[in-house]
């Protein structure tokens, strides 16, 4: 049995004495594609920020590559929620992607190899030719690709995306997730999302977060969990090849 890439044990976290996460324990293996789902305000983003080391737990432990997350932060590629970023900030697409090469090799100046790495990532995300555009001229889906390109420029082992498809249409979502599937061949991927229907054939595990975390390693969301009031947008996860996550009632609209 391989050592897990991310190991979370008895984790507790609260904001101003209001508990957000309680007694969370689960592991993430290498090359896993983990979907983090759950109701808004349930603690999904908080869990992700704890894994990244941006927040510190009140109790319990998180180890990534066997170390505290803040010691290995350079191995994460992070795609934050679009709404968390000042959208009217006057910055070019190139400068955003170059942030991924910040502190790369200890140099302060932007080098030719930094630019090449940035252009390569943009190319990979199908955003070549946009490098001189201002970020606020792009559509939501294009902006999301730029943020993923920035994360890829850091050459991460673990890619963490927080609701990357908010404001992206259905076709764009399908395209985005098939890109993530390609990246999953070499990288561990954690994605916070409500789009279980779209990414159902790609994910290898699901974490259902609502103050507590139910982790399903290719397993099923059982009726018990629904009874416990998890209000996850998914009610059943079915086995099969490819592994699929299904909604019982197709009436989300």
């Amino acid at each position: 049995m391989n050592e897990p890439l991310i190991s979370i044990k008895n984790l507790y976290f609260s904001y101003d004495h209001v508990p957000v996460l309680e007694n969370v324990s689960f592991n993430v293996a290498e090359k896993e594609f983990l979907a983090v789902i759950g109701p808004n305000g349930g603690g999904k983003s908080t869990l992700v920020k704890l894994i990244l080391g941006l927040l510190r737990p009140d109790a319990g432990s998180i180890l990534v590559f066997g170390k505290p997350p803040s010691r290995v932060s350079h191995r994460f590629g992070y795609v934050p929620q679009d709404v968390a970023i000042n959208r009217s900030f006057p910055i070019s697409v190139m400068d955003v992607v170059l942030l991924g090469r910040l502190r790369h090799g200890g140099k302060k100046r932007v080098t030719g190899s930094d630019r090449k790495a940035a252009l390569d990532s943009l190319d990979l995300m199908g955003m070549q030719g946009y490098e001189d555009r201002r970020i606020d001229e792009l559509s939501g889906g294009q902006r999301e690709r730029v943020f993923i390109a920035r994360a890829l420029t850091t050459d991460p082992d673990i890619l963490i995306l927080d609701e990357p498809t908010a404001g992206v249409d259905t076709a764009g979502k399908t395209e985005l997730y098939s890109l993530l599937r390609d990246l999953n061949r070499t990288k561990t991927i954690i994605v916070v999302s409500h789009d279980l229907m779209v990414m159902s054939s790609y994910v290898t595990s699901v974490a259902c977060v609502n103050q507590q975390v139910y982790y399903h390693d290719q397993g099923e969301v059982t009726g018990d969990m629904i009874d416990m009031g998890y209000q996850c947008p998914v009610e059943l996860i079915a086995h099969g090849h490819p592994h699929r996550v299904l909604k019982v009632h197709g009436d989300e609209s």
Partner: protein
Amino acid sequence: MIEALQFEFMRNALVAGLFASLICGVIGTFVVVNRLVFLAGGIAHSAYGGIGLALFLGIPYIIGTLAFSLGAALIMTAVTLKAAHRSDTFIGVLWAVGMAVGVILTDLTPGYNVDLMSYLFGSILAVPSAEIWWMTALGAAVLILTLVYYRDLIAISYDPEFASLRGVPVGPLYFLFMALVAVSIVFIIRVVGLILVIALLSIPPYIAEKYARSLGTMMALAVFFSMIFNVAGLWAAYVFDLSSGPCIILAAAAGFFISLAADLMLLRHRKNAFLKG
């Protein structure tokens, strides 16, 4: 204007104004994109306490204002980092306290000081040569530090969480940045006074932001606009024998309204073109 340059005070004023433009363009750009105009105003007004302290103790005004504006900047930064939702209240309080302390200390100083207006509204025409030199040194230090940490400053302005993942010390850098803002404000107080400092820090970057595709071009444009406003204001002050600080600010305000009008006309033109099809 050319014949005015034979006077040393006019040359000094021009040099100080152009140098202030460099600082306003660079630091002002960060202030505007980080939405820190109110905080910059708070630092500038609390510096008045430093002017009172300097008068009271009989020390150079620069030491008093530096001490007060740096102190205010550090407290405001600490509050902003710890409790962002309360920072506007704290800024308002420090703003008022600084001014009140300044007035009280001036009251306690024997004799009436006629020079106070020059700190409120600037006295660029009275900048002595000796002061030009250390102002230049101070300004150069601000510019060099900003350029050295340029990428880091962009990163913490745009996305502090991502910056912190890349190993950028976000907290300490934020303090450094605020200290740079405080020093810049002390510098600009000499040119346009502490009441008008906010206009010179915010108007040129605001206009520049609309036409810039990146932060770098925004800075360059802001410096350019600021230089035009400074020279135009100084020229008006010289020709019409008016106070230089308010003239510079009105020149900037004119630029502000002209750019707004130009935007509206452009918008209307585009709309008409679109409707005609």
